[in-house]
């Protein structure tokens, strides 16, 4: 089911791109179907037929239909992620991270979004892979006063400038009630099923070993900064990175004592074990 729903999302994204590129109005309603999904359904198919019809209309009117290669970037292996060497990625042992139920959550990352709920969410977390530096704006919860811009080097996590970390953490603790970790829709078993199904045919085998994928779950559930920290082989790494690019997760959420909920960007590391199965 998980595979189907994720496939559905990816195909939907392609349809959206085709519609946008060709100025076709396409209203996609959120799918509420809870049963088994094969990745497509009569409604999805009807949207494809509608797009084809609209594109034909445009062509008859002498307009160009822009489709070829439009979504190549969506599905290609994530070369960017693979191009980064593992030693540029923060390790699980970095002192700035907490390990929470298998996820690595940078402790200092629960930042402005949670505290203010008004800051553009995408600005709350940013990794510059070239400099291994995390930069974020931090705000004082009570007065909504901009305390400082904080930077810290992941190689030298002690060098945190312009912020009183203890105060900051206290603000988090005193004002928050519950922290929900990011999660693949359907949980880890569905995640693993989705990956193994989409890794495809494997008619006669598969690579084996442990893999670790680092990524950020954005507040809207999309994944970014996908990097293979620990790879198995180039092809499998590329396939897995490509799949993560299209997943949607339930984002990390801080629920405040006031019962307000604030989704925020959160970095995770997902471990994947590809077993060698023999008889």
């Amino acid at each position, binding site marked *: 089911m998980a595979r189907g729903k994720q496939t559905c999302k990816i195909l939907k994204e392609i349809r959206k791109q085709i519609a946008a590129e060709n100025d076709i109005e396409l209203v996609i309603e959120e799918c509420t179907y809870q049963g088994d999904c094969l990745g497509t359904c009569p409604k999805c198919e009807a949207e494809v037929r509608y797009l084809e019809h609209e594109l034909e209309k445009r062509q008859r009117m002498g307009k160009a239909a822009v489709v070829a290669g439009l*979504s*190549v970037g969506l*599905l*290609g292996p994530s070369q960017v992620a693979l191009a980064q060497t593992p030693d540029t990625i923060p390790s699980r042992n970095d002192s700035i991270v907490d390990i929470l139920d298998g996820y690595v959550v940078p402790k200092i990352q629960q930042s402005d979004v949670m505290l203010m709920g008004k800051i553009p969410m995408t600005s709350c977390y940013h990794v510059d892979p070239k400099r291994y530096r995390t930069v974020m704006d931090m705000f004082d919860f009570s007065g909504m006063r901009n305390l400082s811009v904080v930077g810290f080097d992941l190689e030298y996590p002690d060098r945190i400038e312009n912020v009183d970390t203890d105060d900051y953490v206290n603000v988090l603790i005193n004002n928050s009630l519950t922290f929900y970790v990011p999660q693949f829709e359907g949980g880890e078993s569905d995640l693993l099923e989705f990956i193994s199904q989409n*890794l495809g*045919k494997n*008619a*006669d085998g598969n*690579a084996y070993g442990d893999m670790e994928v680092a990524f950020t779950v954005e507040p809207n559930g999309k994944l970014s900064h996908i990097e293979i920290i620990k790879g198995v082989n180039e*092809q499998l790494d590329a396939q897995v990175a490509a799949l993560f690019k299209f997943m949607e997760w339930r984002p990390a959420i801080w629920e405040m004592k006031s019962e307000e909920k604030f989704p925020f960007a959160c970095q995770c590391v997902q471990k994947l074990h590809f077993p060698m199965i023999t008889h």
Partner: protein
Amino acid sequence: MTTAKIFGLDRHRLTTDGEGVTTLVAFNGCPLRCKYCLNKTSWDMDKGRDYTPEMLFEEVKIDQLYFLATHGGITFGGGEPLLQKEFIKEFRAICGPQWQIVVETSLHVPFETVQEMNEVLDGYIVDIKDLNPDIYLTYTGKENPLVLKNLEWILQHGDPKRIKVRVPHIPEYNTDEDVAKSVERLKAMGVVEVDEFQYIIR
């Protein structure tokens, strides 16, 4: 009219058999008898459904927009798809040049077939088994000089980046050292896309 037996169609495969969104078309018929073949259905020529290239096109064209938008298309597997060269050529004539056509093949087919089909295909996924002739023979029941000759030819007459060669660790048939030797030899032949992997035995 060319027909072929097809025992499986699988739509919306994402980056599994090459680039983009693909539909896998699995043919019956294979010259090899690999011990761990997972699609043994393909050995039985009585199973599957008869298709003409036109019938297949009618069935798979519903995903044309996805194919075009993602540089995807059809991956012919099986079984050994290159045994169906006339079918694939006719299919190409129908679907046009924009769909990507990739074959998952053992290359254990006549040299002339490979020469004939090269310009019809956009890419190959080659299951090379093991380059050691004894291992190949024991595992598949066939000899492999033909496979190597075919591989060498397509490497010389096509883009090596479009030729992915899969080198399996085959339990009880080859060792890590055998696999390493195969990989080394393949690289010397000019293979740039090597995919070393482990057979899963169920």
